[in-house]
């Protein structure tokens, strides 16, 4: 164990976990990385392309190397950063991308073959034969260069979505964020303070500094405690604000249970928060960057700030003999802190010339690390100093190439950051409205500067709300941050820029040589900055090397676009509860539970569940049920739930004029107590929707729409009412849910209904297409004599809460007639037998003329779509017309989706004569029948035609007939 004294871990408790099957112990407060380092495990993964041995580079979410699979079964999660995964009792973790084991990886051979795997290698190598790509090359590459794997088992955990509102969102709980939240919270603002870490404090927990009279970590703990007690402050640890969206909306994911073996009963794994905050403070700190030098990727080489964090926060030193390589003052702190903790600091290799030397440490100025050794972990470094090379035996090296303000959120809206020569990094320029950067995220690197800018931003936020927020700052260091940029040390071997994607300095040079010099091209060509870490440590280094090659400034070279998410967000969190049966809600009709009790088979229509057919005992095939339902309805009577059709009340003194403008046919002449079939067009002249509308009173109409279009028609009617004709006195309201409605169809329909209805519904009392407000045993109801099936039929509507009672009453009353309840399949069969159009014919590219309903379009008035329905091409004499189709040989089964071809015509697009739209088996006729659109169809009655389906390889000889297969004169309807 390499634990030293101190740290923010709870040594009173021990947690046991496994890594690659081996058992280890850690403490609460440990991450997987800190616990493994404490157990002298430096090797944690293999690199993406070359399978190089890798350890941790960082101590945070920017980690490119230490990616592991954690948990098992449905909870198995690949590519988890060991640097952020909290250790819990029983945690199982496995290394990735190695075979057969982490220390002996067969594909380590790739490292020897590195010259074949340079940037863009797959664009050049796997060019031909093209068909090899999908079957051969891609699977091999994917297996060799993969990250972790999924078990493909279902995730057993629940994920939530939530909404939060605040006056001020503070992102990041380091010194700047804590001070901002304290200032705003003390002033009574509604504050949310979110941090990706489980412990609030940011770098305060990783340093050995003082704030006020306390150590920096103690001050952070006190500040967090005070914030927790403030009534208007919500602390959100383990919460990553991953995206900035328009108008003060922030996306955040809270890892509610990622630190537990499994969520506590009733808790979710993660919650996706949508946070609304007119003002936000980005206190996201800075991310340290490496320096490129030969073999800078060995386990044991890490960022200097991370090395310091492991020592100060986790009481771990990942080595016995430590060196530091830095180009700035902050890196020197690592040497000072480690030496103070009794660690053997072999040397500080400082690339800068001149300046003061650290006391008591071998501090080499004007020096650099030029190479390293150690196959599975660092054993030594080669240092060049004043032209002399020297090899030092060390097992840990802290590297600091400087710190980059963490711009992630600020630049997501494509604002370009400014370059600061002073810190040799990009600093945020103007961000989205309401978002300001403070502290290290703004390039202010001292603790005092962080506290001050945090407090100032909070005060400004309060003032914007008309509130005062005074503050007093605790004393803190305000040391200068001095840096002399050094990006890459000249070398003969390979120096890594992006460790996650195995991008080296050579690859950047190759990209430049091949003219992929723009940073966006550089990214795509070399994969620099891709994958889970999105180049948080390597991007600027890559841009700086490219800048040296092109001779442009780094500022002009720029950076690739920042996009959400800041760190990976699980699909589970994004999906929330919308999965499986809960993906979308189902709407149930009032008769649903009755139908279910009868064994109904349901089908989704829009969001509704409708009865598709209702099998009787002994029926094993759906056709048996459907044929029975059709035959019984035509022979006696059938009942069908039609509640799902859209219903819209249209009222007002101009209601008739309004209907006249939204329907293509005439409605002004509709008498009170009558229904009429209406055809609605789109403005471009195509048929949009159809349905019957009934006139209940002088200024009162009830419109019905198709089930699928109910919402859309209502929206369009509101548009017509508010936008097109606001001068009309008309009001509309959707009443689809208010009424349960049943169709009662068949020769005995009237007899059945008369048993229930209080009023006279004889043909004289309620003639065909009549409607009436009636009562059923005193209960108010509506009765419409309309028919979709072609039979004597009614639709009866009662307030929705009586729907269940009515279906039972109808079935009971129908018993003496042998009444059946039929579903959407039988409904479809009967409408095709009758030649009524439905969804298949109303396909958005068909006109009324195509449907044989051209005469309905009135030219005597202005209505939506009428003008353009008269366009030349749409009124061509020989255009598509709705026809009926029956097989010449009744035993032949036509195929849905077939096209029509003349006898002898080759199956070409030019010869295509139209297509079959709806196909059903008619039990009434004893063979298949179909509707279709046929070129010049109205004049081709009786013609023999080929019904061809090239996909199914079928060709049936058929005859073109009238679409009215039964009762063409409509005698049944009027019976």
């Amino acid at each position, binding site marked *: 164990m390499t634990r030293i004294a101190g740290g923010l871990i709870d040594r009173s408790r021990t947690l046991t976990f496994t890594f690659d099957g081996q058992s280890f112990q850690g403490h609460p407060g440990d991450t997987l990385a800190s616990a493994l380092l404490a157990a002298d495990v430096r090797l944690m993964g293999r690199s993406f392309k070359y399978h190089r041995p890798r350890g941790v580079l960082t101590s945070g979410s920017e980690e490119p190397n230490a990616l592991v699979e954690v948990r098992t079964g449905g909870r198995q999660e690949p590519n988890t950063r060991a640097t952020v995964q909290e250790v819990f009792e029983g945690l199982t973790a496995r290394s990735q991308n190695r075979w057969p084991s982490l220390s002996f990886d067969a594909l380590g051979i790739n490292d020897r073959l590195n010259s074949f795997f340079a940037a863009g290698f797959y664009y050049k190598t796997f060019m031909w034969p093209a068909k090899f790509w999908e079957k051969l090359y891609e699977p091999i590459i994917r297996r060799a260069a993969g990250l972790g794997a999924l078990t493909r088992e279902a995730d057993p955990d629940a994920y939530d979505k939530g909404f939060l509102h605040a006056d001020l969102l503070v992102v990041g709980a380091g010194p700047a964020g804590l001070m901002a939240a304290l200032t705003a919270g003390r002033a009574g603002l509604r504050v949310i303070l979110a941090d990706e870490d489980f412990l609030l404090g940011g770098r305060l927990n990783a340093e050995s500094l003082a704030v006020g009279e306390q150590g920096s970590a103690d001050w952070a703990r006190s500040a967090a405690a005070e914030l927790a007690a403030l009534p208007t402050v919500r602390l959100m640890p383990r919460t990553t604000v991953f995206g900035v*969206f*328009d*108008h*003060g*909306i922030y996306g955040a994911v809270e890892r509610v249970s990622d630190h537990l073996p499994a969520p506590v009963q009733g808790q979710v794994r993660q919650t996706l928060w949508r946070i*609304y905050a007119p003002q936000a403070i980005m206190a996201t700190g800075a991310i340290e960057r490496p320096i490129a030098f030969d073999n800078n990727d060995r386990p044991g080489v890490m960022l200097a700030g991370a090395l310091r964090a492991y020592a100060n926060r986790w009481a771990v030193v990942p080595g016995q003999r430590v060196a530091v390589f830095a180009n700035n003052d902050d890196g020197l702190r690592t040497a000072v802190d480690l030496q103070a903790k009794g660690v053997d600091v072999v040397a500080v290799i400082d690339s800068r010339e001149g300046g003061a030397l650290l006391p008591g440490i071998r501090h080499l100025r004007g020096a650099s690390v030029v190479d390293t050794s150690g196959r599975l972990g660092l054993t030594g470094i080669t240092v060049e100093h004043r032209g002399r090379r020297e090899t030092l035996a060390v097992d840990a090296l802290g590297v600091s190439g400087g710190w980059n303000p963490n711009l992630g959120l600020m630049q997501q*809206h494509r604002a370009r950051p400014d370059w600061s020569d002073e810190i040799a990094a990009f600093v945020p320029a103007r961000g989205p*409205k309401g978002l300001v950067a403070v502290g290290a995220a703004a390039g202010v690197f001292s603790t005092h500067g962080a506290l001050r800018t945090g407090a100032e931003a909070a005060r400004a936020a309060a003032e914007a709300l008309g509130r005062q927020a005074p503050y007093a700052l605790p004393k803190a260091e305000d040391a200068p941050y001095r840096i002399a940029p050094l990006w890459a040390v000249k070398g003969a071997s390979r120096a890594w820029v992006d460790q996650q994607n195995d991008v080296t300095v050579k690859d950047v040079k190759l990209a430049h040589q091949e003219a992929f010099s723009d940073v966006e091209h550089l990214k795509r060509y070399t994969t620099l900055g891709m994958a889970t870490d999105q180049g948080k440590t390597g991007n600027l280094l890559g841009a700086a090397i490219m800048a040296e090659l092109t001779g442009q400034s780094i500022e002009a070279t720029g950076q690739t676009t920042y996009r959400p998410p800041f760190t990976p967000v699980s699909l589970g969190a994004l999906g929330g509860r919308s999965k499986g049966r809960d993906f979308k809600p189902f709407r149930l009709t009032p008769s649903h539970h009755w139908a279910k009790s009868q064994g109904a088979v349901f089908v989704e229509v829009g969001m509704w569940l409708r009865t598709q057919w209702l099998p009787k005992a002994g029926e094993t095939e759906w056709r048996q049920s459907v044929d029975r339902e059709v035959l019984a309805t035509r022979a006696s009577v059938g009942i069908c739930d039609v509640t799902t059709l859209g219903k819209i009340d249209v009222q007002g003194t101009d209601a008739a004029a309004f209907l006249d403008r939204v329907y293509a046919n005439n409605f002004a002449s509709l008498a009170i107590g009558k229904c009429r079939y209406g055809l609605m067009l789109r*403005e*471009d002249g195509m048929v949009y929707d159809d349905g019957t509308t009934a006139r209940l009173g002088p200024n009162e109409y009830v419109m019905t729409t198709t089930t699928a279009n109910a919402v859309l028609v209502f*929206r369009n009617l*509101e*548009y017509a009412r*508010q*936008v*097109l*004709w*606001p*001068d009309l006195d008309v009001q509309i309201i959707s009443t689809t849910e208010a009424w349960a409605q049943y169709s009662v169809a068949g020769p005995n329909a009237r007899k059945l209904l008369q048993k229930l209805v209080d009023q006279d519904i004889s043909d004289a009392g309620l003639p065909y297409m009549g409607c009436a407000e009636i009562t059923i045993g005193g209960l108010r109801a509506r009765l419409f004599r309309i028919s979709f099936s072609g039979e004597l039929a009614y639709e009866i509507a009662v307030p929705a809460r009586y729907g269940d009672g009515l279906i039972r009453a109808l079935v009971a009353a129908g018993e003496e007639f042998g009444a059946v309840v039929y579903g959407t399949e039988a409904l479809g069969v009967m409408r095709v037998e009758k030649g009524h159009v439905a969804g298949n014919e109303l396909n958005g590219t068909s006109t009324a003329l195509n449907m044989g309903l051209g005469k309905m379009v009135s030219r005597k008035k*202005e209505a939506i779509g*009428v*003008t*353009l329905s008269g*366009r030349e091409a749409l009124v061509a004499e020989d255009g598509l017309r709705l026809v009926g189709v029956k097989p010449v040989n009744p035993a032949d089964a036509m195929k849905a989706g077939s096209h029509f071809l003349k006898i002898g015509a080759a199956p070409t697009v030019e010869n295509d004569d139209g297509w079959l739209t709806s196909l059903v088996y008619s039990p009434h006729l004893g063979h298949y029948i179909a509707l279709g659109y046929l070129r010049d169809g109205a004049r081709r009655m009786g013609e023999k035609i080929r019904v061809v389906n090239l996909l199914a390889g079928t060709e049936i000889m058929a005859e073109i007939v009238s679409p009215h297969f039964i009762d063409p004169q409509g005698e049944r309807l009027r019976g």
Partner: protein
Amino acid sequence: MRLTCPLCGDRDRREFYYSGSEDTLTRPAPDAGDAAWDDMLYLRTNPAGVTKDLWYHESGCGSWLVVTRNTVTHEILATERVADRKGAPK
């Protein structure tokens, strides 16, 4: 994205249905000719900058709105009920 409905106040974008350019507000007369109809139905400008489009507060008050916004900065500059527009028929 947030929109301020003149009746309901500051609301989330998901309460609204987007219906494209305000060009469709000017419906040609039946005899206006093919060009005018073509213009209204099919031709849209796609400005980088200020644009006006129609939104329907479907999960709110049901108002059709004209929203003035900037396609570059995503700023919402104004929201107005179609029925309240200057010169709108009353």
